[in-house]
């Protein structure tokens, strides 16, 4: 079996599972946030049970509309706080956490081999730690909160084998954009995507999270990477206990529906052009694209490694007149680290605005929205029509290095062409 099959077999009390089989899995962790949580709470109340199945296995995170930008959002937050209080759940309120997908592993809620469901499509991020993690809707989250169980169709798996060393300013974000560009936005629909190979083995947790985070953008049920020493180093001191990683390795004879090979050694920075995540081009082929906004943050690229890279590119430079640059650390922990390392000083000196840890403009519900005719280059994960505000605005997806370089020049720019100071 491959790692995903092993996790689903164990969670459903079976010796083995096969693609296409429907299993009833025990869930190890559930996450709900301020935009999907209120519907889940409403649905939970209709089920007719008084208490959640296990209050230690449900986490509430306020991250989308925070701090509340409207009375309606404030009411939603109030609902979530009350539910967390009534059910005695762990809640990460404004200023205490950050973006759910960063907070979950940081605070020790993600364990290799676990089955994790979240009422957010980017829940697949936790596959970076060798967990089976996938997004669900609010009603289903309510059902899981009541029963601790969920059905899954065991997915066929695609092995994505990556080799080669990245060139300077080419990053895991460029790799995943390149993968999605090749596979298409429905290239992995209903399937598991397993990232493996020498490049993945050398990759940081931050990079692995970026890859698994965007697995859903090609339709995948989950993205997953076998846990190893890098995983152990990140999780030690955060989780209570770590499982035996040997039981979480794909067998040598594991079945895959297909295997695709990628070599990053000659890869250029990549850009997903409007308005589909698979409309991916190397930056040299994008042409002259002036921008009005540059956004560095989100559950895809708001980690300390991303901010370091952006700061390296922006150090001693100014954000071009006519461009607003938004920097949003993915969590309070990342914010604090960026403060300690002097990164926030570099950003503010450059004329970028640093906002509090939250989802920000990524989903067009809160701050940093776009007007008609404007373009934004963003480190986030979606460039759909109307995603970041006006339906007449354009969103380009790229790495933190590319976004930082573009903020400085005022147009989409290859970071390798920009002179940087040590």
């Amino acid at each position, binding site marked *: 079996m491959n790692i995903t099959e092993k996790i689903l077999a164990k969670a459903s009390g079976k010796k083995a599972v096969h693609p296409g089989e429907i299993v009833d899995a025990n869930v190890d962790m559930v996450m709900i946030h301020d935009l999907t949580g*209120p519907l889940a709470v409403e649905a939970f109340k209709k089920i*007719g049970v008084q208490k959640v199945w296990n209050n230690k296995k449900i986490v509430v995170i306020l991250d989308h509309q925070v701090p509340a930008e409207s009375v309606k959002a404030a009411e939603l937050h109030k609902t979530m706080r009350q539910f967390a209080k009534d059910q005695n759940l762990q809640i990460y309120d404004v200023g205490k956490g950050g973006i759910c997908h960063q907070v979950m592993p940081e605070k020790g809620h993600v364990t290799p081999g676990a089955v994790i469901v979240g009422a957010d499509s980017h829940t697949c991020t936790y596959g970076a730690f060798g967990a089976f993690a996938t997004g669900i*809707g609010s*009603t289903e989250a309510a059902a899981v909160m009541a029963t601790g169980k969920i*059905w899954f169709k065991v997915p066929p798996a695609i092995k994505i084998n990556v080799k080669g060393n990245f060139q300077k300013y080419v990053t895991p974000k460029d790799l995943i954009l390149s993968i999605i560009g090749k596979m298409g936005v429905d290239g992995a629909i209903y399937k598991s995507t397993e990232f493996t190979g020498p490049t993945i083995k050398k990759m940081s947790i931050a990079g692995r999270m970026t890859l698994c985070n965007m697995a859903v953008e090609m339709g995948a049920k989950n993205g997953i990477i076998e846990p190893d020493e890098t995983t152990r180093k990140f999780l030690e001191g955060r989780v209570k206990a770590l499982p035996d990683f040997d039981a979480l390795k794909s067998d040598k004879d594991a079945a895959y529906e297909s295997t695709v090979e990628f070599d990053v050694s000659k890869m250029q920075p990549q850009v997903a052009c409007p308005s589909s995540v698979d409309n991916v081009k190397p930056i040299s082929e994008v042409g002259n694209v002036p921008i009005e906004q540059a956004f560095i943050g989100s559950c895809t690229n708001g980690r300390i490694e991303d901010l370091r890279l952006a700061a390296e590119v922006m150090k001693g430079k100014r954000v071009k007149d006519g461009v607003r640059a938004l920097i949003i650390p993915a969590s309070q922990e990342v914010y604090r680290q960026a403060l300690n390392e002097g990164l926030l000083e570099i950003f503010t000196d450059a004329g970028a605005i640093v906002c509090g840890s939250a989802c920000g403009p990524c989903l067009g519900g809160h701050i940093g929205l776009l007007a008609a005719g404007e373009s934004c280059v963003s480190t986030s994960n979606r460039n759909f029509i109307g995603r970041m505000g006006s339906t007449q605005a354009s969103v380009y997806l790229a790495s933190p290095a590319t976004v930082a370089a573009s903020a400085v020049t005022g147009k989409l720019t290859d970071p390798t062409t920009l002179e940087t100071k040590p």
Partner: protein
Amino acid sequence: MTSKIKGPAIKFGNNIDTDVILPGKYLILVDPCELAKHALESLDTDFVKKTQKGVILVGGKNFGCGSSREQAPLALKYSGVKCVVAESFARIFFRNAINIGLPVIECKGISTAVETGNELAVDFVAGQLENLSNCKKFQVEKLPPFILEILADGGLIENLRRKMKNDRI
């Protein structure tokens, strides 16, 4: 809920994403009737005017891709969409629709055999779909019995309530 649905088709293309079905700025709305007013407005500002008497939505590949927001199928359901038929669905949308009692049916070849305004008849228990306007018939992907049960009950919560009640008896 009956397994037989009839109505005029409204057709969209491939990869209709949840941001297009219901933009993020409306997620703070709680009332499904309010959500419904904005269903698919980015693609067709008059969409809601066309759906009120009941329609069958037809999509291409990867219908409902993107966010896990259940507000997307909710907005469709309350706008008057009785069923969504597509070449394929994004998995979270597919589950969400079933969980709120909106039938979703995978049907290969549907996007080229139906035009907006065609009258469709779907029987999702029998796995049949007919385009009454051109007499084309399709065998569609049959849903497993436990999903049909959820739809018959009107959604996952109603299904769970019934099962829990039975367990107690």
